[in-house]
Structures are given as C-alpha cells and as structure tokens.
C-alpha cells in the first residue's frame, strides 16, 4: 500500500482536495452546498490522517482519523442540516463581495501563503506543502467569516478555520495524544451546539430570513 501511495501522489491529491473544497464555497450560494463542502473537506482530512497512519504505523493516528470522520464528517454536518431545516427557508448566503471577486481574493491569499511560507520552514512528518495548505485554509475560513452576513455561514467559516488549525497542528507535531484530541472535538461540538441555539434565537427575535448578523449592530444598551 505504501508503494502505490508514493507512486500516485495520493497524499498530495488529498491535501489539494482539502484546499479546493475550502475555495469552492466562495462560488456556492446555497447553504446546503456549503455544508456538503464542509463534509467533504472533513472526509478528506480524515483520509489524509489515515494515509499518514498507514505510512507511520502509530495507533493514535488511526484513532484521530476515526474521531475526525465521526465528529466532523458525520455528526456536525447532520446537526447543521437540522438547524437549516428549522429555519424553514431556502437559505441563500448573502455576501458583501461578488463571487468572482471573492474567488480572486482567496486565490491571492493562497499565493501569499505559498510565497511567504517558502521552503525554509522545517517540518517533521510530512511535506511542508501540507502546512502551507493548512494556513491557506485557515485564512480562507477567516475571509469567509468576514465577508458573509448570515450566522450559519459564519459558523461554517469558523469550522473551516478549525479544520485548518487541526491540519496545521497535525502536520507540525504528528498529532496530539488521543485524550487531547477527544477534548478538542468535544469542545467543537459544544461550540456548534451553543451557536446553533443562538442562531435560532436570533431568527426568532428578529424574524429575519437568514439570521442576518447586520441586525445585531443596533443592540446597544
């Protein structure tokens, strides 16, 4: 299995796939499609960890891969979908920028990351390429959080950032002990659940279509 992985650049393809799913949400307008993109992103993430685990057989890598798949690949998308269903309207993400402009900006972000994290950085484990991709995913997630109005889009931006942080930490340290990862995943689940409750509350209070965060600017005591 190790041989054909090297031969076909499987790991490079998977990491490029992570980057592309992160970029692709710039061009999607339906929130369901965003959730799907996040789901695929998490699947690819756990697949990458699985490939690393095959290459360097350590048990906690398999645990991390399974945990990522179960929590980010299955549980969170399911929960987000149920929230979207509760909102009872076809969710269209409103953005401050046009699609092509935000695509170009994310392209520029990637270029800056690639150039500024040149070849000098020493990385254990797998290639420094993965570190570049993870930083790019973090910045794209941040960019999405800044430029989108609706609350659920901002949550998805945060989740993409979290995936990026996870990948960055993973590429630098070969993964933390399983207990730490378990804690991080549990934290993430809690955050999303609390945010989900907030979002439904915002929608009910203001009866807006998509939990528009612009309306919160008037809340001053």
């Amino acid at each position, binding site marked *: 299995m190790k041989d054909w992985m090297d031969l076909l650049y499987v790991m490079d*393809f998977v990491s490029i796939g992570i980057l592309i799913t992160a970029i692709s949400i710039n*061009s999607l307008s339906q929130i369901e499609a965003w959730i799907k993109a996040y789901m695929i992103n998490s699947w690819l993430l756990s697949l990458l960890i699985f490939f690393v685990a095959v290459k360097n057989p350590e048990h906690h890598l398999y645990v991390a891969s399974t945990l990522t798949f179960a929590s980010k690949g299955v549980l969170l998308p399911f929960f987000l979908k149920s929230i979207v269903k509760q909102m009872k309207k076809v969710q269209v993400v409103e953005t401050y920028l*046009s*699609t*092509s402009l935000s*695509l170009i900006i994310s392209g520029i972000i*990637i270029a800056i990351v*690639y150039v500024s994290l040149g070849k000098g950085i020493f990385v254990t484990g797998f290639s420094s*390429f993965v570190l570049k991709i993870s930083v790019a995913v973090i910045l794209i997630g941040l960019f999405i959080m800044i430029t989108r109005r609706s609350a659920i889009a901002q949550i998805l931006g945060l989740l993409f950032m979290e995936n990026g942080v996870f990948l960055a930490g993973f590429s630098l340290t070969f993964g933390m002990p399983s207990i730490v990862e378990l804690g991080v995943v549990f934290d993430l689940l809690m955050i999303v659940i609390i945010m989900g409750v907030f979002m439904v509350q915002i929608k009910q209070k203001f009866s807006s279509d998509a939990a528009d965060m612009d309306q919160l600017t008037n809340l001053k005591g």
Partner: protein
Amino acid sequence: MEYLQFLIIIIFSPLVQGIIKKLKANCQGRVGASILQPYYDLIRLFKKEMVFSRVTSWIFRVTPFIVFISTIVAAMMIPVITTKSSFSLMGDVIALIYILALGRFFLALAALDAGTSFGGEGSSREMIVSILVEPMLMLCIFTVAITAGSTNIAMIAEPQSFVLSPSHVLALLAFLIAIIADTGRVPVDNPDTHLELTMIHEGMILEYSGRYLALIEWSHYIKQMILFTLFVDMFVPLGIAHDTEMTGLIMSSGVYLLKMLFLAGFMAIVESTRAKVRVFQIPSIVGGSFVLAVLALLTLIMVGK
C-alpha cells in the same frame, strides 16, 4: 507525409462537430441528424450566393479569409498523430494561442463593421469571454510546459506518458473549462440558437451569408478540433507516434480517434446535463476555473510535481 497531418484536422473537424451533435441528441432521447450533417451544411452554404450590406467595408470581406487561414496555420503547428513534423520548429504553443486570437480579433472587427446592434453585442461578449479564457489557457500551458521544459508542443507530447500529479490534474480541469468557454459550448454559449439574448458567437456572424459564412463556420469547427488535439497532446499524449513509420502512424491514428470520441462524448454529456447560464454569470464560472489554473501553476512551483 508528416507535413500533411494537419489535413486530418481540416477534413475531419466537421465530423467531430457532427458526432457531438448526434451524441447530444441521443443523450436527450432524440434521433438527431446524421453525423455528416455539418458537411452537408457547408456544401449547401458554398453553393449559395452572398449578400453584402451596403455599409460594410473591406474588413468585412477579408475577415473570412483571415479567420480561415490563421486557423489553418494554427492547425499546422500541432502534432496530430506523430510528434515528428517539419513545422515543429515553429510549433510554439504560445504562438498558437495568439494566432487563434488574431482570427478572433478580426471576427470581432467584422461584426462591428456591419453596424448592427447584434454584431456589437456579440463581439463585446466574445471579447469578455476571451479576456477571461486566454490567460487561463496560458496558465495551463505554462504548467505543462515547465514540466516538459519546453513550450514546443511536440516536445510536450514527446514523453509518451500520462503524467498524474496534482498540478497536472488541476490544469487539466481548468483547460477543459477553457475549451468549453472558448468553443462556445453550453454553460457559456449555446451554439444552436439564434436567440438574441443569449448568442455570443452567432451574434458576430449574423451578417455573413453564403461562402463566407461557410468559411467562418468551418474555421470554427477546425478551432474546436485544434483545442481538443492540444488537450490530448498536453495531458494524455499516450500512444502518439514518434516517427513516420506506417504501422506506428496507423496505431496512433486509432488511438487519436478514440481520444476524440471520448472528448466528443464528454462535451455531449456536459451540454445535455448543464443549462446555459446568464451572460453576467459567465465571469464567475470562468473565474472559478481561473483560480484552478493559478493553483495549478502555484502547486507546480511550490511542490515541484
């Protein structure tokens, strides 16, 4: 012998168009016209008389010839069934893209020349698409050219293998979208309608009739087949002959035929499963694939594969 391989493109390009139309009709549950229909259309147009508007100038009359000749020159440059060619010295892929752009430039001028509103609309839209598509094509070509170490198409097609690396796959996807946009296929333009709100290519050639229209249509088919061949040469050169031996040539012709059929099937599937987008959404589709092309080049530079 190898001088004549561009004749394959010139002769068979209407056939490729006919096959795409037939497959598309079959996908949609229709019987469709015969695959030789584009030939009949061209013959019919060559027999008809031409009508000129009184306001047109010489540009309108020379444009069909410039378009046709520049397309044929472009067809001479690319290896079709063998990489050994006497024209290979000038077979530079950047020159090829800009020779095609010459024809497109004159077509846009001629559309403005007749002074109709549809012509102006068509040429402005064509220029928007080409502004977006040309840098994309160049970026994809650079990605492949850096790996091959040359911008000569024969040298790119020489390694005789299918290079599977992340940067190549990204460039391949971007190039496919560029082909769709450049040949006026469905998500960007509908080649079959003459509906004024949607047409791009048809809007430009609305004033032409008879032999001149036949020349322009034919060069459009040739350009489509050139782009298909370029795609095949750059990304899947597997099976192309390296010399001019008869057996090798016959085998590589068969492989070439298969690749063309595959691409025609792909185009037919894309055309029948996608709907035409609005004109103002074209930049977002093409912009997305432009990002793919940029990523391909960046990945190649940074990862080295």
